[in-house]
């Protein structure tokens, strides 16, 4: 048992990170009934924006830029966490505006549109930042390694899991304890009824898409120091996200978190025995669960099935 413990821990922290990726995806799919295949590209975009916020290399910033770049890294890193997701949220809102013509059509149109958007964002990243791998700097205090029980752990992975847990907690508080959260949940349940009650559905959708995109960007900043930053890193994020959502049940917050942790554990434990095949386990887990429970673990009947 003891030899599997590190893998369990590893799986658990990976699970929290997966859940973080899936959260924004879940918000969008439950309120908008849109599978946002560009989620991964927004994830990558968040990390690239953070790259710019941490080290803005623009001549036109002049002396302000120099003063800014003289700030200590933790301060700039903290700012990146605020600014980059906000910028991604703006991009997400732009995408939502483009999507309006597909509402009311078959759900596949949303899928196709966001697939195209993913390609466009990824290629734009390639143009702006080049195709090669980049590194997102992390403050010294939260990087490096430490020893525990004779094993070496990466400090940053632990902090990343912590960031993920905090973000998940905040989203939960937002959904469960604020009036906006109540509207979003109601919108996920029955958006037409929400409109009938006099709530501006257009604005709600815009905000939810912005929030979902912002969360994707946030996840990108947290995860890319571990995964590395390439223009196509998004594919590594969107696939687990959608697997987790289908596994957990579309439109369920607890489903997304449980699904994320389950997938993380599955990957972690398979990693212990057959590290080459660890990612395969999440697909097999999904196929197994969905074959038995068509709507996932916590799913209710949704509009997407029509």
């Amino acid at each position: 048992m003891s030899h599997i413990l590190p893998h369990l821990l590893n799986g658990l922290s990976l699970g929290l990170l997966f859940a973080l990726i899936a959260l924004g995806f879940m918000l969008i799919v439950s309120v908008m009934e849109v599978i946002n295949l560009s989620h991964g590209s927004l994830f990558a975009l968040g990390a690239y924006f953070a790259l710019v916020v941490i080290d803005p290399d623009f001549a036109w910033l002049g002396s302000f830029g120099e003063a800014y770049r003289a700030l200590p890294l933790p301060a700039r890193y903290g700012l990146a966490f605020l600014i980059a997701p906000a910028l991604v949220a703006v991009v997400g809102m732009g995408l939502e505006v483009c999507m309006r013509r597909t509402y009311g059509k078959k759900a596949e149109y949303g899928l196709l549109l966001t697939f195209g958007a993913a390609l466009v964002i990824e290629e734009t990243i390639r143009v702006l930042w080049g195709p090669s791998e980049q590194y997102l700097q992390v403050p010294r205090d939260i990087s490096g390694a430490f020893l525990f029980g004779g094993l070496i752990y990466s400090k940053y992975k632990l902090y990343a899991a912590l960031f993920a847990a905090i973000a998940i907690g905040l989203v939960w508080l937002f959904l469960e304890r604020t009036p906006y959260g109540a509207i979003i949940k109601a919108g996920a349940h029955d958006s037409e009824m929400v409109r009938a009650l006099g709530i501006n559905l257009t604005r709600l959708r815009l905000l939810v898409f912005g929030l979902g995109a912002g969360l994707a960007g946030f996840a990108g900043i947290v995860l890319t120091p571990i995964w590395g930053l390439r223009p196509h890193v998004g594919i590594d994020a969107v696939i687990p996200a959608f697997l987790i959502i289908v596994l957990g049940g579309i439109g369920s917050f607890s489903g997304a978190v449980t699904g994320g942790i389950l997938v993380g554990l599955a990957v972690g434990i398979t990693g212990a025995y057959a590290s080459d095949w660890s990612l395969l386990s999440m697909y097999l887990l999904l196929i197994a669960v969905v074959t038995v429970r068509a709507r996932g673990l916590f799913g209710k009947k949704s509009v997407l099935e029509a």
Partner: protein
Amino acid sequence: MAPRQSFAGRWVPGEMALLFVLMATLPLWIGPVGLYQYLGIEIAIWMIYGLGYNLLLGYSGLPSFGHGAFFGIGAYAFGLFQLRVFESLWLGMVCAVVAAAVAGAFVACFLSHRRGIYFALLTIAFGQVFWFVSIKWHAVTGGEDGLLNIPRPALELGVISPALSTNADFFYFVLFVLAVVTVLLWRLVHSPFGKVLQAIRQNEERARFVGYNVWLFKWAAFTLSAAIAGLAGSLFSMAQQSAYPDVMSLHASGIIVMMTLIGGGFVSFWGPVIGVAVYFVARDVLGTLTETWLLWFGLVFVLAVIFKPEGIAGAWQEFTGAKGRHALARRAMAGLISAGRK
């Protein structure tokens, strides 16, 4: 009742004849317009792939986002047959088609009671499984490098067996396969089987109530479409003389969806044919002008989904005022329902 068409009209309508003439004369004009022979081979192979794929997307309304898997399985199966068993064109192709069809039939068992988004999501999951296995199963697939030096066997015709080693010769072989596939698929979509698929796309429940075994039709359409993808894959491994995992990635699977949709697969049999030609010519023409051509292609795709999901064929039909397949399909549906009532 529509008037009975002539034999030629039913088997080789005008558009098909035009396609065949254009493709058959391609070696004569592709050089002078600044392109090259190999492009013709690629276009023909992807036309086979796209036509088979549109049986799902356009005719049955089933968006598969993992179809690259079956293309790849065909390519690997052909390559493995040549490298491990013995060199044979026909047997290799049969092996590729059977392998892709078996994989497709297996996957379809999990998919056929699903529709819409859930269908699409499961196809992504299965596509990723096959892609992942192709990368990791080094002993069989050669990992990320794939299978290299796959021979291109001679065309065995009993008495004579001409070599296909030059691209010019190989092109005519691919064209022959394309012609066979096109004619058979054309007949298939105009057969009662094809009409039921269209009825399923329009309203699955209604088609079920009329008394059709919807599950079986979807299963058969998926399997057939996978088999055709495998056939295209076998030609691809001959063209490239290698087989590699790239063609199975989500990206590659998405590209065939984009080609089919931009061309107008939703409203026309010829949608994927147009889309494939546009894609490859755009890749080569725009690709020489700018390295970011995929960005522009992606933008065009996004605009197409927003404003014109009927694609190029749809725009053409609107322009000429021709009756779209939708109108025909609606009539077919009405016919089915009245037949069911009797």
